[in-house]
């Protein structure tokens, strides 16, 4: 882990109480890449420390929730552990994995592509080019198992959520809202704009590792045609993860 500059330690996080089984370590109140990297860095450091009684570490955009068993460890001890780790936190990109996600854009698979193009004043091709041109960091997991909130989506594509959320968004949908993009792992209600769909399953209980993404990973999207989509979909249906992660260093 690289040494941290003084700017990293000038303002410590706030400890917020979440009952007797969880503690929130809040680094900020906004979506911000540097804040999020400190969150994931703390999560990683605490995980590596293997503290008895810590049940789970849930990073979010701007805070880390530490779930613990109060019959094993008390909140005060966790605060002390966190304090000790703060000077070494990094706001560099983490050592997560890079996932390249095949995506069929537009048409019935991405019913909002034309609308997004219209609202952003771009051509649909340009929207696809921008979306698939970025490398996104997974800020946090949430909403449903395996779903990662990925950023930062360029300002050119930033739109508020749909005013009328869909009751059913198909699983695999690749979507955008505000400065974020995501992949709906399973069918669910949703208010994001659907640009396309990936044939891969980000959450499949048949695999040893059912969920692919994790906070701190990176994601790139690349365009595929319908034939490739169908071929990959058939493999995914058979339980094949289809894609393999690369070291995050490959992202740059």
């Amino acid at each position, binding site marked *: 882990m690289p040494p941290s500059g003084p700017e990293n330690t000038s303002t410590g996080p706030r400890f*917020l*109480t*979440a*009952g*007797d*089984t*969880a503690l*929130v370590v*809040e680094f900020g*109140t*906004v*979506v911000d890449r540097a804040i999020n990297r400190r969150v994931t860095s703390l*999560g990683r450091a605490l995980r590596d420390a293997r503290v008895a009684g810590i*049940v*789970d*570490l*849930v*990073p*979010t*955009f*701007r*805070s*880390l*929730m530490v*779930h613990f068993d*109060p*019959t094993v460890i*008390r*909140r005060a001890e966790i605060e002390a552990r966190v304090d000790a780790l703060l000077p070494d936190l990094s706001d560099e990109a983490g050592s997560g994995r890079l996932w390249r996600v095949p995506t069929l854009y537009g048409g019935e698979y991405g019913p909002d592509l034309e609308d997004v193009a219209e609202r952003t004043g771009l051509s649909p091709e340009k929207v696809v080019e921008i979306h698939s041109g970025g490398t996104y960091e997974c800020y*946090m*997991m*949430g*909403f*449903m*198992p*395996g*779903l990662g*909130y990925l950023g930062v989506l360029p300002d050119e594509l930033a739109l508020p959520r749909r005013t009328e959320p869909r009751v059913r968004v198909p699983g695999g949908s690749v979507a955008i809202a505000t400065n974020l993009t995501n992949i709906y792992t*399973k069918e669910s209600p949703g208010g994001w704009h659907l640009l396309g769909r990936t044939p891969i399953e980000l*959450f499949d*209980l048949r695999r040893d590792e*059912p*969920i692919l*993404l*994790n*906070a701190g990973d990176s994601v790139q999207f690349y365009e595929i045609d319908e034939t490739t989509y169908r071929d990959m979909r058939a493999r995914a249906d058979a339980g094949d993860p289809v894609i393999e992660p690369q070291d995050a260093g490959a992202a740059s």
Partner: protein
Amino acid sequence: MSALRVINAGFAPTIQDKGRPHVQHLGVPPSGALDPVALAIANALVGNRPDAAALELRVMGPTLEVEADSVRVALVGTVAALEVQGERGGPVEANRSVRFSRGTKFRIGGLSDTGVAYLAVEGGVHVPEVYGSRATYTRSQIGGIDGRAVKDGDLLPLAQDSVGERSEMKCADLDWARVQGPIRVVLGPQDDFFSRDSIAGLFTETYACTREADRMGIRLDGPALTHIKGHDIVSDGIVTGAIQVPGNGMPILLLADHQTTGGYPKVGTVISADVPRLGRLRPGDEIRFQEITVEAAEAARAELETSTARVIDRFERAGAWLDEAALYRENLVSGVVGPMD
């Protein structure tokens, strides 16, 4: 395969154990028993570890048939009896273990006295583990039988074909199931999003449980809380027992199937010692809240662990169930009330 055949599922029971709280960072809710105390006692009665998988019952119990040489079961958390069907049938009171042999059919009726009860079976309900737990999370089809609630015709797989004969046990001390008094709450993590007056109201007024209640949470009805910094936050983590307050100001108690993160402020968190009580709530029940410190919450949890262990230590021997059944009928005739009345 030895199993309990589900002749009639009742009201969508689910298989639950201690849950999977260690994969919340992947977006997977903890799930698990809404009332882990009742689960532990039910399991102890049949000789299981406290966190073995059992059937969590809500509203209306199932009718089951034994498709194993023998099984040992215990129904805990309700006054409802196990009604053994057939000529030699009769009621077996709750809160005791009982051994049934192949072909026995038994029914559990309406659970009018609680939001949740457990049917534990010796060896546990033996469905595959997902992330180290057999708990069912129906929204994402995780755990249990194909990730769904139990339905008519299902086979609940058993870990063993038969169970040994031994003294049956009963839990005579049922004080744990009728804890009274306010639900204890620690303020935070976002109590600063609410007016001081409305927080004061949270701890003085009465709230009612609405019908909008499931394993994910219970919507309450009562005095609205007033947001003073808006009702959206950038998503942060959620813990079981969190009191989330969306834009309409009406608190929602978040239970085991809660989402792992969320964007509404949480005014407070029900302490872990009182979370099992939330699972027992029924629509229409009225509750009050009391503010306590984290230190007091930690002490309350330690006390709950001790008192639950004490309840289990004090199990008594139960008679043969047919004798019990006869006794039960006599008691009804003579007007003696049941153990949980």
